[in-house]
């Protein structure tokens, strides 16, 4: 177990290095001038800026400096927010994205498992059809449409009620988190519901379920102890990639609901060609995802004894 974990962590480090390199290469292939400004400035200033950001050095040296920075956990100074370090930006804004992401994943996982189980129980009957219809709707409508619509609906609901049931946008309190995390988790929830449903149906015809029934266990117990638990396993395996998709896919929700997350910073940084912020966020996200996948894999081993033994 320990060696396995160590091996995975080592692999993860190499992967992060690869991500860093890919980001660096991509960034330096980008046409455009990160130091250009709306108002023209003189040569001297340009030289100073290049020096400040180390752009005057050869690319190989810049690469080494960049890698060195990563090792020290220092991503440099932002190009657009000249007084702020990328580390500060990540430190201040990532927790927001992470909070949103965790809630969305929790919502997606719980909702997906429950709804999936329900649909499997009521296979081909009204609840199944109703849920699957909604699931299909959630899967096939783009997230930005869902986000915009839910905000509009919230405005109308608040207007109808005459008081603010849930805030329309913003961040800070528990009430602010509910709708954005649900919107963010919706697609994944729909996906997990489908996965859970097919996994449940597969388990229904498994031999050990027949055994459990032959043992005369009450249906609820069979369902809970045998069916649900085994059906959840495949759902857990996709949780790693799902967390990845959710945390990096938060831009839209962050934009629409005015949430100060890291995703928004990334999009803004890309539009401003803010080298350090782009590279810093990408590497950070990459490292986060890699560690997330490792954690989920280890978690999976803990849940599924079959994996643990291997």
């Amino acid at each position: 177990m320990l060696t396995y974990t160590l091996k995975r962590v080592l692999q993860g480090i190499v992967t992060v290095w690869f991500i860093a390199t890919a980001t660096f290469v991509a960034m330096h292939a980008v046409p455009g001038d990160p130091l250009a400004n709306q108002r023209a400035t003189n040569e001297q200033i340009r030289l100073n800026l290049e020096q400040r950001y180390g752009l005057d050095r050869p690319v190989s040296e810049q690469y080494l400096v960049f890698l060195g920075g990563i090792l020290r956990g220092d991503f440099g100074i932002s190009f657009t927010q000249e007084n702020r370090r990328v580390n500060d930006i990540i430190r201040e804004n990532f927790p927001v994205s992470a909070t949103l992401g965790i809630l969305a994943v929790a919502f997606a996982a719980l909702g997906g498992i429950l709804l999936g189980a329900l649909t499997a129980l009521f296979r081909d009957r009204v609840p199944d059809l109703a849920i699957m219809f909604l699931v299909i709707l959630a899967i096939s409508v783009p997230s930005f449409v869902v986000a915009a619509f839910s905000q509009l609906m919230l405005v109308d609901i608040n207007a109808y009620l005459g008081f603010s049931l849930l805030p329309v946008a913003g961040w800070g309190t528990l009430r602010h988190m509910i709708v954005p995390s649900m919107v963010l988790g919706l697609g994944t929830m729909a996906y997990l519901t489908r996965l859970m449903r097919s996994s449940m149906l597969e388990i229904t015809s498994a031999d050990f379920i027949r055994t459990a029934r032959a043992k005369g266990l009450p249906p609820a117990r069979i369902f809970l102890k045998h069916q649900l638990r085994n059906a959840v396993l495949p759902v857990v395996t996709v949780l790693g990639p799902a967390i990845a998709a959710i945390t990096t896919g938060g831009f839209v929700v962050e934009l629409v609901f005015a949430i100060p997350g890291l995703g928004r910073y990334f999009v803004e940084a890309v539009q401003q060609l803010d080298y350090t912020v782009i590279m810093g966020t990408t590497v950070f996200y990459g490292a986060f995802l890699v560690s997330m996948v490792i954690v989920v894999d280890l978690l999976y081993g803990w849940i599924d004894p079959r994996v643990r033994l291997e």
Partner: protein
Amino acid sequence: MDKQPPTYRDPMSRLAVRQLLWLGALSLAGFVALMGALAWASSITGGSAISGRAVDYETKTITRALAQEPPQLDSTRATDQVSIFVLGHIMEGLLRYDASNRLVSGVAERWDIRPDGATFWLRDDARWSDGRPVTAHDFVFAWRKIVDPANASEYAFILYYVKNGEAINGGQMAPEALGVTAVDDRTLEVEFERPVGFFDKLVAFAVYLPVREDFYDSRDGRYGADVEDLVYNGPFMMTRWVHGAHLRLEKNPQYWNRNAVQLNVIDMPYVTSDTAAVVNLFKDGSIASATLGAEQLDDAMKLRWKLGRYSDGSVFYIDFNFRQERLTSNFHLRRALQLVNDSGELVNKVIGLPGYLPAVSLFPIWLNGVEGPFRQEYPPPVVTPDLALARQHLERAKQELGVTEIPPLVLLTGDAPIANKQAEYFQNLFQRTLELEIRIDKQIFKQRLEKMTSGDFDMVAAGWGPDFADPLTYGDLYASWNGNNRGKYNNPELDEQVRIAQNALDQQTRMDAFGEIQRILIEDAVQLPNYERGLVYVEDPRLKGVVHRSVGTDPDYSTAYLVENP
């Protein structure tokens, strides 16, 4: 067997559903607990509580949204509108604009502007938020910082009017050589590089704000990066800055004119550039003002909002590339394009937002001339769309260029929605009228700037926002030496007029020069004016006295007040 055979499914599902409901309830509880924990955790890491209401009469609080996060609030490096808006509230320069857009005394009590320099006498009750007096040294320090090339200030050029400013910025002189001295704590003496007739307007601009040296040095390069990295001398001070999320301004008790400030708190807990979200927030009663896009007008009318409009001062136009190898260096081609351009159609039919005005000149309508509005004193030559004439010019252009068919022209544009709309409109317009093929080159901001600088375009959709309320903020854009003249227009006649406008002290002479510049720009078809940007906004009816302006702090809440029952 007529009886339905028994099945195991029904009781199974009934029981299981009960179980499932239990699980659901449990996970819901868990979910809420998780949210609670996260909310608690984020409150530790500096999350923010939102008051939630647009206007609170009791506490004299208003809530509004910010379009974006200010990159930093170091006035020596601020360039964007949001920073300038915030700085306009938390800082005060030598002079400021009042509610009627007249220049009035700020930190300076009196001032005297001469052809060779200026003197400012500072008021003795001007204080920083920590109680220390605002002195002339604070201005000297800030201004030196701006022209210091090590500081890489984008706005350094605006201090080139001060003696040696340009030389220092180019690295040829030390910052200490800047022609500004603190005669004593209360007196600031400025030497000009060349006569400047509008220095009073310049010092009202955010870049000329004071910065206190001891404080700046104590922040170790982080001045303006955070709420504790600033000291304030304006009507408000910042009490909270959660990056990307929340800014909160509160009345500055040390401000000399504190009695005139009526609002206690300006809370800005929303940062979003999404206009729809902002309008939704307003609709929900969470914020006190919102700017509307064309697409929200119908809804606004339906909701019977009281709308206002004003011009934000900027002008948008299409620039040509005048480099020799480019077809657009040909006058007749440009003239042909100019003759089919109908800014009225663009604004009225395509943009469709009331605040916008069809542009007819580089100089916007709000600029003042000698006595009255500049454009009334110097009406721009009228270009009436004339397709037949345009085709004639196109034929001549083809002859002069020696081509039978004009090759595709590249129209460089940005990635904002309205820029797309505009580019697509022009593509279709030139295709429809002159059968010219236009290739749209849509680029993100920095890539567009690079292409503009390197001349990789035929036409580019550009715009310019005013830095100070003098026609010169536009007037020198096409001077051959101006770095912002990215199409490299080079016309000695125009250069001559720019020099006159820059150096003359007499307003009549200067305005005549601008009139000439305006004529040249239109007659030589140097650019195609598109629109003067305007904004349509809605404000909470309880909020009064907010000032909107084209140049300077916009909107300005320092004179705003609340009424209980509108």
